[in-house]
């Protein structure tokens, strides 16, 4: 992980804390609440990072589902 990525994640954590986003699931409600007003670029990127995290979690689940079970010896 590069310094830029670390700084990016620190910003995400900071924004998430400021906006009281606890989990990936909360991001949908947060965006909906913000839909009438302009979000800052940092807020948008924080929300995108949470979507990215949720997609990664579900990718792992789908990959596990798609993997045939191994037959034991």
């Amino acid at each position, binding site marked *: 992980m590069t310094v830029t990525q670390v700084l*990016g994640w620190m910003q995400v954590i900071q924004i998430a804390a400021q906006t009281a986003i606890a989990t990936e699931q909360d*991001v*949908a409600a947060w*965006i*909906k609440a913000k*839909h*009438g007003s*302009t*979000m800052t*670029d940092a807020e*948008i*990127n924080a*929300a*995108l*990072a949470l*979507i*990215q995290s*949720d*997609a*990664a979690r*579900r*990718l792992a*689940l*789908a*990959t*596990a*589902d*798609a*993997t*045939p*079970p191994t037959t034991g010896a």
Partner: protein
Amino acid sequence: MRRALSLVGIVLLVACASLPVKQKALVGLQTTETALASAQDFERSLCSPTQAATNGPVTHCDGPNAATIGLTDAVHRTIAGALAKAFRAQEDAAIALQAWQAGQPTPSSVSELQADIDLALTTAKQLLTSPSQQQLITEIQAVADQAATLAKTFTGGAL
């Protein structure tokens, strides 16, 4: 479900008409993520409600309705593979959008997202052909519709 998601998408897009393109894209990507997750949850619960409830891998379709609608282990694995591609594209699109600035071309990963979700839909349609399987296809079709809406955000939105 599809109608409800479409309605939410339309309401959000209308409400966001004057917002920056990047924020509109965020709303579109979030809607797509929600629809994609809903399709995954639905397919997994059809395959095996007990395994799906653990939030771990669903390795065997033993649900009471799985056999009736032809959702075999092989079909489940194929759909899961297509969904995995869609979630990977979703993840890539989220990464690309974080670096995207107004005035730049549409990130290629957004176009790839639409292609991968269309592939998931095509896969589901080919595998699930009976009327009783229609609800699952409808779920994935809703995702494809949202991905198309997301792609249009970049061409139809004002900066």
